[in-house]
């Protein structure tokens, strides 16, 4: 068994940013383990532009954004293994990995950063009726076929779900010569970013059917058509509102699920709200020395935010390895109040003395809303938003000194985040 200071599980945007930051914070004995043949993760297939506006102040494509971080890894000489799949992590931080090159390997790590990302919700989780024919893909799978392998999944396409990958694929399929007949969204609002609705659907006159869902999938060998219908307030299809499309392809863009099987093996406690690890402000999980960041922790809207968060995980892991992280400090819970969902982090250490970032998703679309953060009776932050939507994550930064305030030091103190009407 090899001894190592820091193992980073995943070589996508989260793993790369975490590794670079850990190096910059002084860590030298580390290794990135990546399942695929090259570094870069999902960015490799996101060939559209719009990445890096926050981080680099310019609009890059996914592969270009990834290369900026890969170049850093190469410059620093940080070791990585590709084609290496981690199959087990124990609470003692023993990591088992398999690769064609080296067979089975075991590492004993002092710290681990979980950066495995997320995967798409598959058809099986939707309960959509109809035939199990070929031609039904998740949007990301279709994206991989088109952008990385040069293959076209079909010619006449319907998209279920208005997540960003589905919207991006509506445009890509159109560019590649397919006809996209419509994008069907169950909710009365889109799950994707506004700019993607405009630039991927409106630009090409692709209709967006809000409050609609697919009620039948037809075709024995290959998909031959789908039927959609309007849904009522309880999201149940309304008889008489059916629309039929002849099509050979149905793409699903119905949500992302953090990939936490390894985290669970390691004994990391998960949050039902985010499907990711429960972490404190240092991004440390319930297992000491195991950190989590990026889409395996909670699904982000922008890769820029993944990079920022992961860099913090890298810095904190390096600090932990040097004994600079106060792990004995009391932690106070961060509680999701009304209108708040998928809150991260779930705890803040009472020794925190740097600005703390809290992120969440609003439960519903709200106009002219106020987000308030309180500790005990004391209001820490109040911010007005002209519009809040579940599709856009909200980030609040708490002042550096707030933990030193009396209310935060009190017995049973908690931080409450809520959306006020």
């Amino acid at each position, binding site marked *: 068994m090899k001894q190592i200071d820091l193992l980073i599980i995943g070589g996508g945007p989260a793993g790369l940013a975490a590794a670079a930051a850990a190096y910059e914070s002084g860590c030298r004995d580390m290794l990135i383990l990546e399942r695929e043949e090259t570094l870069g993760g999902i960015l*490799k297939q996101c*060939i*559209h*532009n719009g990445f890096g506006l926050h981080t680099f102040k310019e*609009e*890059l*494509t996914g*592969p*270009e954004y990834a*290369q900026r971080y890969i170049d850093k890894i190469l410059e620093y000489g940080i070791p990585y293994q590709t084609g290496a799949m981690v199959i087990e992590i124990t609470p003692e931080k023993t990591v088992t990995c398999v690769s064609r090159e080296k067979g089975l390997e075991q590492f004993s790590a002092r710290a681990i950063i979980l950066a495995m990302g997320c995967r798409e919700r598959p058809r099986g989780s939707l309960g959509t009726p109809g035939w199990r024919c070929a031609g039904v893909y998740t949007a990301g799978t279709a994206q991989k076929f*088109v*952008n*990385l*392998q*040069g293959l076209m999944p079909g010619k006449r396409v319907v998209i279920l779900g208005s997540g960003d990958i589905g919207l991006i694929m509506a445009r890509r399929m159109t*560019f*590649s010569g397919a006809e996209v007949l419509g994008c069907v969204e169950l909710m009365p609002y889109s799950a994707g970013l*506004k*700019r993607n*609705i*405009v*630039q991927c659907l*409106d*630009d090409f006159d692709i209709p967006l059917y809000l409050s609609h869902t697919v009620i039948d999938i037809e075709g024995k060998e290959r998909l031959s058509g789908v039927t959609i219908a309007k849904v009522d307030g309880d999201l149940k299809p309304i008889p008489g509102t059916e629309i039929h499309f002849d099509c050979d392809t149905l793409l699903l863009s119905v949500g992302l699920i953090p990939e936490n099987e390894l985290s669970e093996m390691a004994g990391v406690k998960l949050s039902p709200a985010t499907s990711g690890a429960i972490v404190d402000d240092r991004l440390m999980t319930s297992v000491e020395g195991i950190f989590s960041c990026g889409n395996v922790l909670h699904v982000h809207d922008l890769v820029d935010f993944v990079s920022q968060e992961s860099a913090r995980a890298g810095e904190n892991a390096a600090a932990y390895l040097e004994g600079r992280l106060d792990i004995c400090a009391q932690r106070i819970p961060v509680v999701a109040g009304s209108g708040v969902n998928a809150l991260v982090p779930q705890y803040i250490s009472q020794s925190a003395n740097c600005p703390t970032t809290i992120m969440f998703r609003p439960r519903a679309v709200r106009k002219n809303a106020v987000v308030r953060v309180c500790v005990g009776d004391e209001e820490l932050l109040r911010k007005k938003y*002209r*519009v*809040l*939507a579940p599709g*856009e994550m909200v980030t609040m930064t708490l002042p550096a000194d707030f933990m030193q305030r009396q209310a935060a030091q009190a017995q049973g103190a908690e931080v409450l985040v809520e959306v006020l009407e």
Partner: protein
Amino acid sequence: MTRELTCIGCPMGCRISAEIQDGKIIKIEGNSCNVGKKYAEEELSCPKRMVTALVQVQGAREPLCVKTREPIEKRLIFDCLRELEKVSVVRPVHIGQIVLKNVCGTGVDVVATREYD
């Protein structure tokens, strides 16, 4: 003529309606701020888009991803894609390398967006 637009300046996504007469905007309504006004003006006079696409690589099935270095006029998107269909590049290719100069006479070059060995 009235044109309906969705502003992409912020998450508000204001529905903007603009009245056009003789090719000139005479009225903009529905925007909540100046960002929306500016967006509508640009969008109605000369909308531009970055185009990202794929081109063939000689002797390989996997395509190379490319982009226009600057946004080009929206109406030229499909002309641009048709020109790129004819392109076939020779490996290796580096990020930023020009694969097609002056696409559709726009003065904008199309460049590679990944390392391809």
